[in-house]
């Protein structure tokens, strides 16, 4: 198709007419890319994108080049439109070789832009996620905890790069396998590490919904007897004579509970 339709236009117009038409298309391309640039700019701004990306390293790098994330994205969109116009015009005027090269370039352009967008979005989302996670972990004053936000960030970068490479047609099978192994390892580690917590949590949900015992009841779990002071997702607090037992809820299930009624 793509090779056919310039021929159609050329047969409608004369040789000169086609040249004039291609010049006109070039101008239209300039106008169109300008409009696209303005609309994306306005759209992104009104969607609150510029506020959302404020402070991320990508935005800061963009600022140091005298532009912004919104600017870069809208410029890419404008360039896309303009390159498209140039390709159409060149094809029409038959300046270059009207063979497969242009057709393939046109076919390749969208993936190139999708790849660029995927990279930009990945960089920004990664940084944002890192900020968010480190904000959450701020109350934990543990130096080792600072590795978690970095892990989250680079995981997202990795996925973004995978998408971008996939768009460009690079063979990514090995990388996908690596990602799967990585995700599997995280799930396994989480399961093993949080096994007791998960069991306590499941028991805690039952305890909170059914309330077989509640705050103020006198109970005995294993050998710990006292008044229930607090029941939450993971633990039950039992107090007697200035001693407070923090019993994991899973224990309430495995060994049962004795309610003591006077």
């Amino acid at each position, binding site marked *: 198709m793509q090779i056919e339709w310039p021929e159609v236009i050329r047969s409608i117009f004369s040789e000169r007419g086609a040249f004039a038409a291609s010049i006109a298309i070039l101008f239209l391309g300039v106008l169109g890319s300008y409009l696209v640039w303005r609309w994306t700019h306005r759209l992104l701004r009104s969607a609150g994108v510029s506020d959302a990306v404020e402070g991320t390293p990508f935005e800061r790098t963009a600022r140091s080049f005298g532009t912004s994330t919104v600017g870069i994205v809208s410029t890419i969109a404008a360039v896309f439109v303009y390159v498209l116009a140039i390709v159409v015009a060149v094809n029409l005027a038959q300046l270059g070789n009207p063979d497969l090269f242009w057709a393939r370039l046109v076919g390749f352009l969208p993936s190139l832009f999708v790849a660029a967008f995927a990279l930009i979005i990945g960089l920004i989302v990664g940084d944002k996620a890192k900020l968010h996670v480190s904000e959450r972990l701020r109350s934990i004053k543990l130096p080792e905890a600072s590795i978690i936000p970095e892990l989250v960030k680079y995981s997202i970068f990795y996925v973004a790069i995978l998408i971008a490479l996939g768009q460009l047609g690079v063979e990514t099978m090995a990388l996908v396998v690596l990602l799967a192994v990585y995700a599997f390892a995280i799930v396994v580690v989480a399961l093993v590490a949080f096994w007791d917590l998960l069991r306590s949590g499941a028991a805690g949900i039952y305890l909170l919904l059914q309330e077989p015992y509640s705050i103020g009841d006198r109970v005995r779990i294993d050998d710990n007897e006292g008044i229930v002071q607090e029941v939450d997702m993971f633990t039950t607090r039992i*107090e007697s004579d200035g001693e407070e037992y923090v019993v994991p809820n899973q224990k309430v299930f495995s060994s049962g509970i004795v309610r003591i009624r006077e």
Partner: protein
Amino acid sequence: MTGLDEFLEELVADADAVCLFSPGKSHYETLAGDDVVVIATDNDVEADAFVKLPLEFQDLRDRIRFGVEGAVEHGYVDADADLVCLAKVFGEDADTVARVRADEFEKSGVYDLFANSRAEPSVIRDVLEVAVELGKKGQKGKPVGALFVVGDAGKVMNKSRPLSYNPFEKSHVHVGDPIVNVMLKEFSRLDGAFVISDSGKIVSAYRYLEPSAEGVDIPKGLGARHMAAGAVTRDTNAIAIVLSESDGLVRAFKAGELILELDPEAY
């Protein structure tokens, strides 16, 4: 204005430490280096010596009292230190200079009430806010009274009995949840106390407290609600926050003693 300058110089002379109440960043940095204690709701300036205010006390005397007691408790200043306090009363910037001795007023325990109670400080603050809110608006324009017993809920439940069905049975509402203000306002119409656990869960409403009232020393003229509040805090490790129906003040009790008195209208 040499007289004024002299007076101010004399006022801040030989102070052992400076108490900054909710300072701005630049403000803090110009004073950093001296013995500075920052007293604010949030540690925005990342000061080393920091006392957390549970709420912005409108009354300067309450604010200074809380801050100074906190600073002494933390060991930032000595118990007999001379302190200069910079605070904001009217505007957004510090506009007031006050000089106090740390042992000038007898220890009221207002800092102790928040920091060293069984319940978490944020829970106590939330309950105080609910009480203040209730005191301001009342129930449909009429003044209401309320009694909140916070912390040590297990023991409090054993020293009280239900007056009616407990509306909070099998519910998991915590003070500070957005719906809570409305619920408490509705339930405050009926008599009895609210029991709130250490972590802020509302355990019960309509509780009739049955502590022994021996040796409870509260100001004369306060009613049965205050007496019950004072007595229950003596018998258990809980604290009690009372909204008075007659004079509309919010009072906090701990260990059988009146610790704090707030006027809801001032907030």
